[in-house]
């Protein structure tokens, strides 16, 4: 009898609602590709309207079609566990996780403020519009929002930045995620926060989605060391545990297609220090 077939066999049960959602998600992806084809066909018949249509076509492609296709595909092949990389909202591998912190949220906020870092605004319609106008007119926007990157399946808890030369296109910035309770870094190191710091050097188009985005500097280690140095200078009692070769050094690309490279070291900033005592630097190296 077919009744026995209805008994769930695997340990992971998938609800009918989730299957339906996935179906509509993928169908919408295909439909959007078809829409792009229709618009491209339509534009061939237009003379003077071609430019206007090209902009519309690009917007459709960059903000609807390509992100949806990336989502569908990255859900299948990009690992969802911690591999030392953040992910963009489209599921692509984003900026490298290159910093960890032990300490409370208050200690972290205080240390960053002392080191001259400014907290970024949350992404809203108003703040997004302001960063566009500020970038175009080259006006300073010290609290400019940063784009969302995901780790532990959620957007960063907060981000800090330092604008360079009063130009919103160039800035130091670092995103922070609170680690889940009981979570440990690969290798068994317990930390409270992990962070991804990179330097925005210009505004350009993403290689993968064609969206307008910040391009980051290739040398992410320079930015990592800048963040550590600025905090240690402002709060001298900060202890530093430098995990050498936490990851293998690598060359790769981030979610916008910018090349990145790192030596794979991971500094852990310990903010639970005794005031008045100079913080030690401890280097952890592997067996060799």
């Amino acid at each position, binding site marked *: 009898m077919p009744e026995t077939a209805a008994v769930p066999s695997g340990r992971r049960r998938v609800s009918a*609602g989730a299957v*339906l*959602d996935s179906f*509509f*998600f993928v*169908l*919408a992806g295909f*439909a*959007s590709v*078809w*829409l792009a084809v*229709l618009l491209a066909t*339509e534009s061939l*018949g237009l003379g003077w309207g071609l430019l206007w249509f090209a902009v519309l076509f690009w917007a459709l492609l960059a903000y*609807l079609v390509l992100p*949806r296709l990336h*989502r569908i595909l990255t859900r299948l092949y990009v690992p969802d566990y911690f591999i030392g990389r953040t992910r963009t909202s489209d599921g692509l591998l984003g900026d490298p996780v290159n910093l960890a912190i032990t300490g409370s949220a208050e200690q972290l906020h205080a240390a960053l403020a002392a080191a001259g870092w400014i907290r970024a605004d949350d992404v809203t*319609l108003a703040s997004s519009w302001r960063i566009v106008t500020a970038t175009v007119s080259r006006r300073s926007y010290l609290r400019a929002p940063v784009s969302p990157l995901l780790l532990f399946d959620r957007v960063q808890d907060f981000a800090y930045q330092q604008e360079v030369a009063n130009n919103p296109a160039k800035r130091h910035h670092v995103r922070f995620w609170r680690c889940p309770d009981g979570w440990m870094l690969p290798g068994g190191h317990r930390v409270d926060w992990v962070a991804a710091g990179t330097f925005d050097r210009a505004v350009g188009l993403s290689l993968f989605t064609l969206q307008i985005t910040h391009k980051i500097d290739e040398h992410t280690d320079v930015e990592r060391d800048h963040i550590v140095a600025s905090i240690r200078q402002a709060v001298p009692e900060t202890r530093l545990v430098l995990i050498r070769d936490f990851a293998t050094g690598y060359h790769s690309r981030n979610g916008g297609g910018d090349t990145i490279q790192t030596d794979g070291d991971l500094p852990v900033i310990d903010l639970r220090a005794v005031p008045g005592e100079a913080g030690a630097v401890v280097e952890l190296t592997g067996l060799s």
Partner: protein
Amino acid sequence: MTRPDARARVKRPASVIGGVLLMGVRALTGGFAILTVLASWDTFVATIVLNGEKLAQSDPPAAGAVLGWLLGAYGLYLVLYLGLAALVFTGRNWARVVAMSFASVSILLSFADYALNGAQITLRTSLVSVTIDILILLALSSTQARHYARARRAARAAR
């Protein structure tokens, strides 16, 4: 005591707002079509064909009644559709699924017509309505829209 806070924190994402707005546009274009028919009633009555003959010539009142019924049914559908949009806005998951199903059926029918019958989908024909349907499906099937509907459902269940 944390429950009301948790519910208040579920922010309506832009994709839901956009999807509902597009559903509104879809209903508006339907309303506009009804107005067009009403404005040139006699012309449309004359086009009604039943059993191979023009109904307006043999039985003019019946032809008017058929058109009236058709328009009434379509109007009712549009009102229900607007109600559906309102429910999507408040985060009802079943309403979202029904709205996505409507859009999917419409898109698949258009695509079948395009692929099998070689129908031309241009600005002069149905490009705008196909575009709206695809955008509705894209918006409501997005992860944010799904999370929003799920979170609202969880919040309602917790009440």
